[in-house]
């Protein structure tokens, strides 16, 4: 351990000399400037005064420099200790065996490292001299209490530090896997979409959740464009919507007494009312927000494109999620094609009989997978429509946190409508224990307003545990009435 000491003393002397020379130079220049400015007034008294002041300042400065030198010395000492420890550790690893003088330093370093921040402000002092001194046992007790507090705080902070480290590690890992997945999606999968989309590897990667910047692309490809909508067609419907909107605001505002309810409802006015009520906490869709007009355009164009369906509440959530992940025209194309799927068409046309079929099929799998909860719900008369309507109409984007909802959408794009109902079962499974303790109103409230801290990995683990098999019948067979008679 000779070279570090050499280095240490060298650095110390270097800093001391540096600080000294700095202080001399500074004091000189300062006194010069002080003596120069009053010399204009040509008073000898002020000249000598300024010289005197300059001298005092130079002394203060040099004192300061000595102080800083000490600080530097301390810091260097600290660095040196760390170096020593590392050196020792290396030496120990090499098998030379740790020596006794390093032992206390090792302990000291550890102390410095984990000195609890919260207790450093606590200064244990005796009473001021003008007050009677503490009795010995009291002082001892205080010392002991203080030590306990410090130990407790140390423990807490150590734990917190460990938790943070773990969290960071987890996050880095996650970011890494997202970055890796992104490369795979962009370079391997997307260029060979048709060949690869159904391979096991892609399906597995897909299940993990799509990286945000390929999400829209994959959704678009998976949803497809059966309707053959082009961006030009979107522009046509958009301008038609704008025309209707204009004529409505010119003539319809006060004379809508005569208009039928249905007319008014499909009007673009209602869409306007709902846009600001779509993801209100995000603020981006509200009036003046960056996505307000975009959402208005997509929904307006859709009502012109599909007057047979019109605008139905819940659509704004679906369009909003698409807009967040795709360009305007692409979002519209995905939106129109998505709503053209049998399940979405049944719901948004509010085809009650068809909806009941979906609910009945859901109940078959519910009973199969979660018989206890199923019975509990039956007894409290909690029917699936009470929560499924909200979940299916908005594709979970209203009830689940947005990132979790997007992951549900990912696999929904992969697996189709079946996955929507499977997700429902996953949610019920995730909260089964809580729900079993609740009565009708609490369960209903819980399910229509799910906890905000829902964890996507835990949810997906629950979804995996819900096989969509009833005997040997699949979802589509059950839904089409092969089995269900309810």
């Amino acid at each position, binding site marked *: 351990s000779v070279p570090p000491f050499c280095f240490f003393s060298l650095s110390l002397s270097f800093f001391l000399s540096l600080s000294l020379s700095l202080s001399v130079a500074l004091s000189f220049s300062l006194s010069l400037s002080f003596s120069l400015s009053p010399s204009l007034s040509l008073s000898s008294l002020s000249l000598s005064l300024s010289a005197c002041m300059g001298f005092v300042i130079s002394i203060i400065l040099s004192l300061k420099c000595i102080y800083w030198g000490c600080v530097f010395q301390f810091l260097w000492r600290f660095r040196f200790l760390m170096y020593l420890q590392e050196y020792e550790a290396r030496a120990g690893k090499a098998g030379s065996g740790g020596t006794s003088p390093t032992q206390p330093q090792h302990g000291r370093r550890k102390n410095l490292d984990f000195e609890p921040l919260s207790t450093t402000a606590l200064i244990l002092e005796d009473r001021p001299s003008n007050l009677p001194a503490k009795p010995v046992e009291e002082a001892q007790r205080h010392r002991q209490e203080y030590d306990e507090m410090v130990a407790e705080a140390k423990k807490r902070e150590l734990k917190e530090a460990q938790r943070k480290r773990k969290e960071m590690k987890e996050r880095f890992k996650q970011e890494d896997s997202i970055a890796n997945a992104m490369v795979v999606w962009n370079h391997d999968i997307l260029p060979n979409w048709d060949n690869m989309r159904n391979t096991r590897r892609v399906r597995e990667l897909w299940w993990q959740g799509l990286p945000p910047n390929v999400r829209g692309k994959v959704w678009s490809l998976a949803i497809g464009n059966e309707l053959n909508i082009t961006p030009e067609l979107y522009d046509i419907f958009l301008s038609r919507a704008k025309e209707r909107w204009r004529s409505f605001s010119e003539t319809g505002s006060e004379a*809508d*007494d005569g208009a039928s*309810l*249905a007319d*008014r*409802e499909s009007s673009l006015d*209602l869409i306007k*009312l*709902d846009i*600001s*009520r*779509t993801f*209100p906490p995000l603020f981006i869709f*509200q009036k003046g927000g960056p996505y307000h007009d975009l959402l208005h355009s997509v929904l307006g164009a859709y009502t012109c494109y599909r007057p047979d369906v*019109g605008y*139905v*509440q*819940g659509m*704004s*959530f679906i369009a909003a999620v698409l807009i967040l992940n795709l360009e305007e025209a692409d979002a519209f194309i995905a939106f129109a094609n998505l709503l053209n799927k049998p399940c979405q068409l049944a719901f948004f046309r*509010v085809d*009650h009989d068809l*909806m009941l079929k979906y609910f009945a099929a859901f109940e078959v799998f519910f009973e199969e997978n979660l018989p206890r909860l199923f019975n509990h719900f*039956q*007894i*409290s*008369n909690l029917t699936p*429509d*009470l929560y499924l*309507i*909200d979940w299916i*109409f*908005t594709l979970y984007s*209203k009830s689940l946190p947005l990132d979790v909802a997007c992951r549900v959408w990912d696999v929904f794009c992969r697996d189709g409508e079946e996955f929507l109902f499977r997700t429902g079962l996953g949610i019920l499974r995730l909260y089964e224990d809580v729900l079993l*303790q*609740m*009565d*009708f*109103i*609490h369960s*209903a*409230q819980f399910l*229509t*307003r799910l906890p905000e801290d829902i964890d996507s990995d835990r949810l997906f683990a629950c979804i995996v545990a819900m096989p969509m098999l009833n005997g040997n019948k699949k979802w589509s067979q059950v839904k089409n009435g092969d089995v269900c008679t309810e």
Partner: protein
Amino acid sequence: MAYAYLFKYIIIGDTGVGKSCLLLQFTDKRFQPVHDLTIGVEFGARMITIDGKQIKLQIWDTAGQESFRSITRSYYRGAAGALLVYDITRRDTFNHLTTWLEDARQHSNSNMVIMLIGNKSDLESRREVKKEEGEAFAREHGLIFMETSAKTASNVEEAFINTAKEIYEKIQEGVFDINNEANGIKIGPQHATTNSTLSGSQGGQQAGGGCC
């Protein structure tokens, strides 16, 4: 918590008139300027006291859009009270009251108490429906009437509680058959349960009778 009766309420009316805001004000005593859209139905519950008796209100807050009517119709079943809400700043929501009333009368039990509510009374400058018009409509159709503001909480408590009072009176008069659950009234557990709130009310639910 133990209660003497449980009343089921349903809140109906056009979209955007403030149904969910009224419910939030009544159950949580707060106002949200921009409330989430209601899809299907949402729920609320609160305990009130009438005539020294604890009454639990179980409130079904429905979606207002016309398209959802066929769904919400099934929610009238078993409701003892209905709050029919319109927006005093939008005349069309007042004009649609007749259809709402027809729907309600057709799909609920005949004894259901209906309270007509003109909401957003704080927006006096934008008023399109006079208070007298609301009163006249209520008189004509045998409803109770009130103007409320979910924003300032004006008359919100009264609207929910007065409806309960009316139901309670009907029970006292023997108009309601409280043993028939289709009337939207359940009798609470006969003896107070010492368990937690949840299992307590669960007990009440079960005491009210199994499934139907």
